């Protein structure tokens, strides 16, 4: 009886030691991958930051008016944001590689999925980036045009354009990521339709007199041919 117990314990200890000895190199490989990955991700961040600074990347955002939006949201500068994003994508990729090196069956499938998902994540990030720029640029252009044309509520018009473009970009991003595609499509359709209907009702009922005055002013002025309110600038 005693021999059986000792035998079983010895076998269990052997298996444990064997298993540990089998796992130890993989663990070391994982740690090495994690360390090397962190170093590489850190270097990627540093190099990318330098390149973006040289290319005056922040200026591009500033010119489009998107830098102000980032600072209002207490986010770092665009250069910092992109380089940090690159760091985390690279670092996360190496973490996945390290976990994969452990050879744990269930995890390998998740790691493969992550690498399959990575290109989509990058495309989605690029979409967010250009979408943000486009939304800022168009909303500012609308604001300036509305102010110079003396239209009512220029800021509301500018904000609506920013929201519309942002919602459109967001729906594209979700579609790219494959997250709740149908829900997003339906939500976008409902939101867009609601905004348009709301605007139509507001213009038709709330701004009836305003619209009447606006149209009268325009048509009467056009009929007269010459505006009398401003001398020729040149």
């Amino acid at each position, binding site marked *: 009886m005693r021999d059986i117990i000792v035998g079983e314990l010895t076998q269990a200890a052997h298996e444990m030691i064997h298993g540990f000895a089998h796992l130890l190199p993989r663990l070391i490989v994982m740690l090495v991958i994690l360390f090397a990955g962190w170093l590489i991700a850190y270097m990627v961040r540093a190099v990318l930051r330098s390149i973006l600074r040289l290319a005056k990347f922040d200026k591009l955002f500033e010119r489009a008016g998107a830098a102000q939006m980032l600072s209002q949201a207490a986010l770092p500068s665009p250069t910092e944001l992109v380089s940090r994003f690159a760091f985390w994508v690279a670092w996360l990729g190496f973490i996945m590689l390290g976990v994969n090196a452990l050879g744990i069956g269930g995890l390998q499938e998740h790691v493969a999925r992550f690498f399959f998902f990575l290109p989509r994540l990058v495309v989605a990030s690029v979409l967010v980036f250009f979408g943000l720029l486009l939304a800022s640029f168009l909303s500012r252009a609308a604001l300036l045009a509305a102010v*110079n044309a003396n239209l009512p509520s220029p800021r509301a018009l500018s904000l609506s354009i920013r929201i519309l473009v942002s919602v459109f970009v967001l729906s594209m991003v979700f579609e790219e990521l494959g997250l709740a595609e149908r829900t997003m499509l339906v939500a976008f359709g409902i939101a867009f339709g609601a905004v348009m209907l709301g605007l139509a009702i507001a213009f038709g009922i709330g701004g009836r007199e305003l619209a009447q005055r606006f149209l009268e002013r325009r048509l009467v002025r056009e009929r007269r041919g010459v505006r009398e309110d401003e001398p020729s600038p040149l």
Partner: protein
Amino acid sequence: MAEESILSDEFIRQLISVGEVDILIGIPTHNDAKTVGPAIQAIQAGLLKSFPRERAVIINTDGGSSDGTPDIVQGASISDVHRSYNGYTLRTLHAISTQYARTPSEAVAFRTILSAGELLRARACIVLSGDSCNIEPGWMDRLLRPVYRENFDLVTPTYSRHKFEGVLVTNLIYPMTRALYGQRLREPFAPEFACSGRFGSQFLVQHKWSHGDERDDPRMDLVISALAGGCRIHQSFLGVRQTVKPQSRDLVNAMRQTIGSLFSCLESTFPAWSKISGSESISTAGPEFEVSDDVLRVNRKQLKQMFSEGVAELRSILESILTPSTLENLRQSAESDEASFRVSAELWVKTVYEFAASYYKSVINRDHLVQALVPLYRGRMLTFLTENRTASSEEVARNIENLCLEFERLKPYLLELWNGRK
């Protein structure tokens, strides 16, 4: 030659049949059938009278007229002019027309005229606007003679204007070009001008020509190129300028064509303007400036409202362009009532200089920056209209002179902003 590619084969054939000329008269048109006939007759009469021995060609560059403007140019006969003016040219006077596009573009029209001038080796080119309805034969002598006989590179006109006409010119374009380049050139953005063939060819090579952009207008660049390049410039008084079409009230477009061009030229001409202080008169025939003070209805309330709303609504944009003190002063002006409203000369000059420096540094999209200046200009325009409401011609001239001196006095401020010291 790269600049020749803009000319169509048919047009080149017509030019070749004309041969070398001494004088080229360019008329850009777009639906100017009502005015182009009398303009051609006045030009022919002017040539008969002042340049009878010179080889001359009239070139009409048309931007897709649908009213038969090019036919009128090509059918213009000199025989009526012979009878009226009792004189004959010793050379054949050619008149040719080319349609460069179906939509008008000042840039393509000017480029075509200057390219034709270079191809025909014209010693002098004159550009007259097709929509002017009072071109006189005497304009040819007043604009061409200084170039053709006195070796000037560029001749610009001065006009007799209503005191409230061309406020953008009197309150911004003229004072700023004067302060920057040190030359008192009254009309830096004139629809009529004459230039030497040499200067025309030089500008043809230097200028960055756009491809059919309707908003691009090279006239401002042409004048700045002459000012910065140390060219010999002359001004000739032409009297009142009248057009059949009403003058455009599109302020945004006017700002783009003039202020956009002026700001954009500042970077390339920095070595020239940064060393200049003060200003000097330039050779002028006739009065430098003449204003009439007839009654003109102006909606002051709307100007004030557009200025105030502009300052409030564009606050976030203006914050990235202007210094906090200038923005605060503008905000205070915007909040004042109509009776006490004023955008002082100093505030206006500082605003313009800060915009110019921000344009150079590209703090925001450059076209947006020029558009953001529009409501502020309306504030300055209202101040000018109010200050000169009952002023005589002399008082208006004095007020403009004071504004020019303010632009000159604050030029070091622009240099500080430019060099990033502020």
